[in-house]
């Protein structure tokens, strides 16, 4: 599981985490969006 997260949290995302990404939102306003982790709920797989 940790190895999987190493794959997902790539350099691209780390840059976005630090500097944010500019997204033109649906309401037409460009915002700099900083992704942050709020919850992580994972189960221990049974099999």
């Amino acid at each position, binding site marked *: *599981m940790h190895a*999987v997260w190493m794959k997902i949290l790539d350099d691209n995302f780390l840059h976005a985490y630090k500097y944010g990404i500019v997204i033109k939102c649906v309401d037409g306003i460009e915002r700099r969006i900083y992704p942050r982790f709020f*919850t*992580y709920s994972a*189960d221990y*797989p049974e099999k």
Partner: protein
Amino acid sequence: MDVDNPEEMSTPHASIILSDSGQTMEVDDSAPSTLSGLPNLVLDMAETQVDAPPPSLTQCGRPRRGYRLPKRFRDNLPEPPAPAPTTPSNSESNSNTNFVRRVILIVRDRLVTAKNSFGIWRDYPERPSADPDSHLTLEELSNSYRHGHLQSQAFSDSETQRPSHWPFLNGTVHCVMQWLNNGQTAKSEAETTKLIHDVILSPNFDPDDLVGFDAHRENQRLDKAVSESALRTQFTESSVNILILSGASHVEGKTFEVPGLLHRDLTSVIREAFESPLAHLYHYSPFKLFQTSHRSEKEDRIYGEIFTSDAFLEETERVQRHGLVPTEDPTCKREKAVAAMMLSSDATMLTDFGTTRGWPIYLMFGNLSKYIRAQPDSGAMHHLAYIPSVSHPCLVGLSHLTNTIPSYLNQFGTLSHLFIQSGGVRKFRSSPIVAESSCMLFG
């Protein structure tokens, strides 16, 4: 007008207005409100109350009784919080303060909204640039609301950019292939009639378009186009390396490669989510939600959403004050907002029969209200990755490592739970007792 007088209370309409205006008046004394005009409005209501006609009398000269539905039959319709007046984010106005050095002036544009009929109000630390709740209709607030139309809209957006004969080269081939793949396999009279009228006699039919036509090649073209437009193409497949320790000090651990991890680029998933039609309901500005009790006038904080939580408030504050801007664009004045990622993962059975199972990692956004997010067809849950489970070729390699693991593995077949339960592969112990006990604890 005396509220305590029972005769005055007898007209139901009058008594309801009285209680409303009385409460709102007290509310205005207790809570600050930046919405100008509201106190005047309330005062007007109170004045009209004084001029209200006396209760109508029955033929016997008694005051007419007010009939109201019993409480269990009365239905309070859902209502969004009072709308917050929004301003477009114009940080340019702050640029004039650049010449002031060593003085950081933090001007807070605090905003407290008016109460709605349930006594619920919001306290924004900063004036929001958008208030998604202000556009909510009564239908969207009710339980029966479904966001299916949003999804169909999202699909049609990408489809409208294609030519009508997609994926074929021209309309004639499209017509012929449509007839070929219409589900009818028999060469019947009706099918032949359809071929003549719908295809050959169609005004778009041009024999020149069919030069070099090959049905097999066109079918392959269709298959390729359909598979490319599927969600699967957004995933990349890769393998992960896991280190399994032997448990014995003299035997070194071994790295195993587990293939078959499907994952999407996390940044592109976030971007896609904020550009989707559902994003017009996203909250970018956090606020505290309060309710003032009708009886005791006591203010209670309401917790229930990510965007009303202290964590989101603090993180937004941190990002807006100290959020870094890339060196390519050091003067960026765009509004800084937080994407509240909520991740989850669990193994899932994909069929009612058989053992086909997937193990997805989901991504949701706390910027969206949980009442929309929790609806099964809202499209608010994004699939980030599919985790592989370790299959037999790996286990063969593992069995050479130590002789205690295979007996355990034979029982369960896969290895994936083993290194998850042990908190990562580094802590893995091969002792059968430890393995069994961890199974009891976590399995």
